[in-house]
């Protein structure tokens, strides 16, 4: 009887096997079909840590360090991994209030519960020491070391620029929120070189988020590659000296080495200590600087479009000579009914006109340039004349954005016929409408960098190299070939000498407008300018190059509302020239007077 149940073993075995097969099917699904578990496991146990490379250093032309890095530490949080912890202790360690803590955690959670976000930025080395000891207690928190920019000489803020956290407008996937990126100046222009290459490291962490060594002995890890150093063309000495001289003055100094186009100094005043825009104090300082009515963040050397005033007469001279409407012997009386002028003898030739900066003389010169006699109608004649003039003026690097290795510089404006057509209608204007251009006033605008470049063109007697800030990158001695290219003007070389001679006389001969720029040991050639402006007193302007033979420096000094060009801009330019060429200042009295002058409150 009982043996009849013998076959029931097959039922029992079948039940066993069904369960066995369900297990195997399930295992097949979990382990082979569904890949998501691998990802989840990695999310659990692996932490992807970014190794931030050191940002490239920046040196001046004599290998003086302008920018270096200092280590700080960011406290990171992965909200999903956070477990209950001693909030009071963490608040004390980091130096925040409990409300801050709750707010920061909430913000991190909103960004992503799984990805790390910055909980507290830029913790100092000292606090980091305490924090690191206690960190094991805080699941989901870890520290990432970062670097901050430091500026040992506190100079050249505008040229160097600053770095800041990437914003939403940056679409490059290289950057993650919280990363730093160059926001202005060289930091921005050379960002791809300075930033280096981020590395990454895969760490294993246990369930308590404790580090447990590197994953697979680090075969997937990549090393961070430090950013390359920039060897800039700036000369720290005259940069610092320029900033000092421009204290309490509003304006700009740009100095260029004519034989290379290297920018030796770029001062925009008022300036600021670049160290102010670094680290945790950055936000507050940035807002203070932004609100300052004298606009210290505004880089006047590159962004301020000024009327050039009388310095433009040297270009007018060249264009007129080139067009053959005057010769160097041309003489025009100082007829103040045409244009106001100061009292001086009548100019008997071009050189003396430049030396004395005679306004009516250049009225006549410019009239000849514009009213060429190319057409009988004077309106049409002016249109043709202006366009010829414009073409030549542009070749001096004006009215166009120079291809300088720095972001955000203005074009300036050299008007052409079309420009006036828009205002007055076609043929609605003639020389009589635009004669202010003759003395560098009216609708034209030039940035100080372009003015310095004009000085360089005269130093070179007819060409310029695109001004630039960087001599070489890293150990690589080559620079952008653009910067090695001679840019010729559309005026023959032969006409330059006479104007350069006149610039010599401006400084060195009796009756010249810039006698205060004279230096015993160095022959300075220059041209003053005094630009009228609707906002107050005239701007004081001076451009120069020195020495006369084989010039080493070309400079433009522009001081807002300071009055006559020969009185302020010329002496300051000469001090910088003296400093650069002789390394010391002999004219102590002059230096004293310039340093103490407060010209910024005149308006």
């Amino acid at each position: 009887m009982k043996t009849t149940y013998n076959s029931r073993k097959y039922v029992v075995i079948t039940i066993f096997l069904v369960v066995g097969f369900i297990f195997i099917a399930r295992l097949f699904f979990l382990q082979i079909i569904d890949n998501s578990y691998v990802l989840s496991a990695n999310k659990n146990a692996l932490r992807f840590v970014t190794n931030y490379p050191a940002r490239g250093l920046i040196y001046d032309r004599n290998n003086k360090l302008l920018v270096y890095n200092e280590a700080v530490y960011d406290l990171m949080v992965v909200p999903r991994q956070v477990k209950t912890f001693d909030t009071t202790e963490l608040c004390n360690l980091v130096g925040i209030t409990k409300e801050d803590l709750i707010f920061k955690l909430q913000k991190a959670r909103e960004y992503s519960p799984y990805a790390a976000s910055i909980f507290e930025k830029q913790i100092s080395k000292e606090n980091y020491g305490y924090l690191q000891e206690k960190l094991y207690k805080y699941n989901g928190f870890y520290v990432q070391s970062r670097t901050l920019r430091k500026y040992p000489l506190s100079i050249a803020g505008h040229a160097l620029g600053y770095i800041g956290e990437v914003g939403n407008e940056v679409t490059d996937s290289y950057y993650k929120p919280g990363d730093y990126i160059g926001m202005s100046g060289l930091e921005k222009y050379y960002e791809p070189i300075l930033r280096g290459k981020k590395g990454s490291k895969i760490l294993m962490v246990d369930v308590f988020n404790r580090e447990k060594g590197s994953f697979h002995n680090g075969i997937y890890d990549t090393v961070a590659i430090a950013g390359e150093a920039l060897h800039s063309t700036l000369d720290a000495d005259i940069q610092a000296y320029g900033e000092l001289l421009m204290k309490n003055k509003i304006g700009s100094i740009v100095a260029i080495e004519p034989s290379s186009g290297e920018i030796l100094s770029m001062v925009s005043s008022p300036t600021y200590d670049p160290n102010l825009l670094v680290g945790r104090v950055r936000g507050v300082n940035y807002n203070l600087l932004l609100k300052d009515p004298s606009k210290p963040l505004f880089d006047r050397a590159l962004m301020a479009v000024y009327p050039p005033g009388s310095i433009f007469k040297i270009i007018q001279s060249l264009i007129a000579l080139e067009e053959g409407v005057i010769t160097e012997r041309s003489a025009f009386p100082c007829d103040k009914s045409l244009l106001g002028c100061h009292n001086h003898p009548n100019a008997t030739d071009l050189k003396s006109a430049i030396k004395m900066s005679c306004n009516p003389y250049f009225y006549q010169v410019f009239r000849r340039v514009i009213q060429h006699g190319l057409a009988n109608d004077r309106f049409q004649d002016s249109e043709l004349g202006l366009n010829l003039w414009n073409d030549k003026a542009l070749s001096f690097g004006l009215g166009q954005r120079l291809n300088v290795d720095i972001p955000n510089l203005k074009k300036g404006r050299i008007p052409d016929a079309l420009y006036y057509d828009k205002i007055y209608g076609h043929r609605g204007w003639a020389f009589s409408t635009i004669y202010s251009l003759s003395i560098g006033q009216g609708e034209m605008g030039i940035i100080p960098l372009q003015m310095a470049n004009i000085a360089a063109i005269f130093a070179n007697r007819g060409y310029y190299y695109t001004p630039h800030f960087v001599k070489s990158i890293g150990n690589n001695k080559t620079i952008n070939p653009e910067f090695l290219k001679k840019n010729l003007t559309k005026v023959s070389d032969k006409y330059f000498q006479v104007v350069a001679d006149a610039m010599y006389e401006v400084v060195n001969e009796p009756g010249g407008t810039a006698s205060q720029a004279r230096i015993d040991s160095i022959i300075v050639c220059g041209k003053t300018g005094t630009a009228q402006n609707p906002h107050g007193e005239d701007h004081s302007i001076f451009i120069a190059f020195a020495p006369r033979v084989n010039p080493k420096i070309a400079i433009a000094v522009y001081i807002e509302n300071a009055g006559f060009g020969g009185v302020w801009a010329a002496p300051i330019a000469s001090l910088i020239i003296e400093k650069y060429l002789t390394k010391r200042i002999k004219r102590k009295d002059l230096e004293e007077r310039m340093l103490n002058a407060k010209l910024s409150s005149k308006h």
Partner: protein
Amino acid sequence: MREQKGILGNIDWVMVGMYTMLVFMGWLNIYSAVYNENHKSILDFSQSYGKQLIWIASSALLAVFIMAIDPKFFSQFAFGIYGFFLFMLLVVLVSGKTTYGSKSWFEIGGFGLQPSEFAKFATNLALAKFLSSNDIHIKEQKTKLYAILILLIPALLILLQNDTGSAIVFVVFILVLYREGLSGNILIFGLIIGVLFVLALLVNQFILSGIVLALALIFIFFIRKNRRGIITISVFLVLTIGFIFVVDYSFNHILQDHQRERINVLLGKEIDLKGAGYNVNQSKIAIGSGGFIGKGFLNGTQTKFNFVPEQSTDFIFCTVGEEWGFIGSLVVVGLMMGLLIRIIFVAERQRSPFSRIYGYGVASILFMHIMVNIGMALGLLPVIGIPLPFFSYGGSSLWSFTILLFIFIKQDSYRLNLL
């Protein structure tokens, strides 16, 4: 001399070999699961893997001891052993130690002992003894009642310890009863109950009742001439709808919160990966990330860094899945299934009903543990903390499974000596 030689020669070395392999694999996986950098030696007795070695060695001694005992001892003293362990279950209720909410441990010199583990083989002995008695016929109501009592008493005592998992294991004896002649309907009935249970939890009870009612009406329509059939179906209908409501009520009002959560997690009604669902989710991650060939011995990140709780005991299968992959899991599941089937075949070759019934009991108990434990690790069954036979860390379970199996091996080795 002659007799002893006979014993050794008649030992089923296939079962012994499978047992040994499983125990050894279990040990390696425990080593991996609780691996401690500071105590790298697998023989370090301050660590679980060192301790497990002590349990393994003592289990081997136990096995040898069982093989040396007169085989009649276990059948003769079956009820005595059963009684003793029932007594121990009572004692532990009074003076036991509470761990993880269950009062089921005796603590003896740093080692814990769990009487409920031993109650399984004791019950198996008693059931085998009872059913193999000469005047017993399973079809009789009285026999069924006594058999169920033998199972129910230890199960209830264990339930009182708040160790639901171990108590549930006793359900599996249905398989033994079925083999011994209980109607096959019991299995079908069990299946229907199971399906209804899950449906009752997943579907609103009124909708489910409506569906059952509609099905019943269709049946009645087809057999409308058969009055008895209609009555039977009606009775079933009432019972089924009653069951649905009872399940719903007990689920919401009788089950404890953590049990309800575990079932909800399993049914996908509750997704709380940090709370109740954490274990299962981490277990699935560990196993799933093992891939085809696994991450290698001691290289499982989830295992090594303790992402799965209870990994050396209840979730030991995660280690297999993560470090040995699909291949390793297949080997382990295959070995376990192989052992079960071997036990069934060996049970069927017994001349004595006691040995056969006992053998079925062994296979059933092992089967229940394997199904629940691996099923839980794979996220197929709710989290019920019972050990994986021969694998999980722990002395009581290894001892009790060893005793359970070796009594059978002993009985088997004597099968030819019986007439």
